[in-house]
């Protein structure tokens, strides 16, 4: 935890800029703010429609369900791909959406459901690597791009949304916002208040892909090959 060579380096920059070193900078009032106009005034239902439309473009299955039917929906998603091993994010939202009970029932039915547990350390990663599906909760959902924002933390390890072939995001409808502008603002406001940003913020838009071979779109490279969003009406 050290900073090396800073003074020499920054003095050189200030010198090139023909002035003394600056110890503060005021962000200018930018002359235009087009980002504010995207889906301005849209309500949650309209944003959900936008999300559904975008999901078609990003090769992502978008399902809408209620909290009561979330268990059935999840089971349907797994069965469709014959997935037996599942790794899920934990934390307070597990209870809030009744997922603890759902997972318990599923375990009795022969599924292996692992809930991320910091006590188990790196074993979580090994389990995630073998799992067929990873389940996470979206913290902020961007309608325009079809993006799930994850503030990765002790309950939501980075591996869950990365290592299994199928990526499943549970999206509370209330988390829908127009675009990345609103998510960035939340983080910026928190920073200003002195609440530090999470060690990893993952903006995830559908499955992994590449166009590196002759510009052909290949869906599923290093990350998940398949993505499903389950929007839960929580409003």
């Amino acid at each position, binding site marked *: 935890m050290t900073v090396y060579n800073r003074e020499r380096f920054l003095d050189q920059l200030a010198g090139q800029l023909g002035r003394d070193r600056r110890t503060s900078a005021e962000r200018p009032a930018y002359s235009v703010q087009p980002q504010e106009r995207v889906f301005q005034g849209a309500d949650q239902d309209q944003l959900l429609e936008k999300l559904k439309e975008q999901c078609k473009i990003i090769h992502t299955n978008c399902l809408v369900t209620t909290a009561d039917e979330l268990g059935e929906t999840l089971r349907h998603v797994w069965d469709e791909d014959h997935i037996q091993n599942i790794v899920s994010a934990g934390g307070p939202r597990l209870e809030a959406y009744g997922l603890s009970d759902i997972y318990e029932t599923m375990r009795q039915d022969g599924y292996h459901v692992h809930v991320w547990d910091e006590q188990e350390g790196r074993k979580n990663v090994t389990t995630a690597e073998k799992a067929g599906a990873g389940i996470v909760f979206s913290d902020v959902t961007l309608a325009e791009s079809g993006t799930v924002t994850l503030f*990765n933390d002790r309950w939501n390890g980075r591996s869950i949304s990365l290592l299994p072939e199928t990526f499943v995001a549970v999206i509370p409808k209330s988390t829908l916002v127009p675009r990345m502008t609103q998510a960035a603002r939340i983080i910026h406001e928190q920073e200003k208040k002195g609440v530090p940003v999470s060690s990893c913020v993952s903006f995830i838009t559908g499955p992994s892909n590449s166009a590196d071979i002759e510009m052909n779109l290949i869906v599923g490279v290093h990350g998940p090959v398949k993505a499903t969003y389950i929007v839960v009406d929580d409003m």
Partner: protein
Amino acid sequence: MSIKIGTKTYADRIQEGIDNTFMRHAVSSAQGRFRTGRLKAAEELGDWEDWRTLGEEIRTHTMENLDYYLYQLSEQVEKRGGTVFFAETAEEANTYVQKVAEEKQARKVVKSKSMVTEEIGLNEALEKSGCEVVESDLGEWILQLDEDPPSHIVTPALHKNKSQIRETFVKKKGYTKTDDPEELAAFAREQLRQDFLEADIGVTGCNFAVAESGTVTLVTNEGNARMVSTLPDTQIAVMGMERIVPTWEELEVLVSLLTRAAVGQKLTSYITSLTGTRLENEVDGPEDFHLVIVDNGRSKILGTEFQSALHCIRCAACINVCPVYRHVGGHSYNSIYPGPIGAVLTPLLDGYEDHKELPYASSLCAACTEACPVKIPLHEHLIRHREIIVEKEQKTTKAERLAMTGFAQWASTPAAYKLSTKMAGTVLKPWTKDGSIKNGPGPMKAWTAARDFPAPAKKSFRTWFDEREKRREKDDRL
């Protein structure tokens, strides 16, 4: 590798590019797709010109206060448990990374795509320290196996076709399946997964650092950058010193511009923002985080007329519209930064001596300037480079300087000018057929090798004009 990728001459490189039919076909089809994607994304978003203006304002403000924002960034990274190393040169950066690798007794390093590490030649340095270095971006992995340099900054293996890629996989990795891109990619997934899990160190680049929170943001599609920053215990992020924004609010705008301008996506599959080390109760992500901030010639651009070249967000939109790149391909530029931005940036970073031809690899059509999402006046920079090369650097050939001196004398001597315009037709007659010259002599050869040159008119303009005036006087008198 360094910024320069080979030793062949400019003329040889161009000829190779022009003769490579597959590459030219691949490039023109890719340019078409990229361009359509970008235009469609811009139209869908609306207010594109406002977005570009905002992008330019953000970049201008950030560069003008770069010392402050880099200070803030380093403070924040340190606060979040990271170590920051400011490197003035490529050597300093490499030595630092080697030192970390040695301390960790690292044997395997996995990398995600990063132009700046190509620029400083980090892979070679790490290999010298006894590390196995694995590039994990699909395109970069193909190039690494084939020991070939990148030809495009977004899709580095654009110049290769799938059967060439298959052959490389067969030869180097014992691949047995077809050249179907899906199968090739599935093979890469399977091969590289083990590397990710075994690696001691993950090396990433940085698309945008956020000063206010000490965050490094990576804009990717394949998921390899997430692997590299999730699985190894040590992460080293290397960034060019200009790749920074003040706050998350600016980050969001530049990311939106980058993904649209680069590939026409609203956002790429993964925008990953990493801040320092993993927290105490977290189990994945690095426990040791290093940020290396690289100057390597960039500060010399600051405060000069070329400062806006540092605004570049590496989207390659200028490359994707360039008619010259379309015909000669990325390797002709002999720089890891090809296309219009490469022609502007490479001489600034690496000097005119080895790159004096690059500013001429442009038709000055200004398509690049129009495509740039942060409004860098690329073609104007190219013109300025040419002026400097001719006037200050005297980097033109002796023959050209002699010819120009001769031209000046000739054109300012009315008698000589008159005589030669009168004689041109006669002198060139042996090479003239049906009003055009198909195989010209001496200096005309280069031109007529590719296209016809119109034969000089039988009468010079001045003779024709004199005769016309005489006729009119005569008519007036009648």
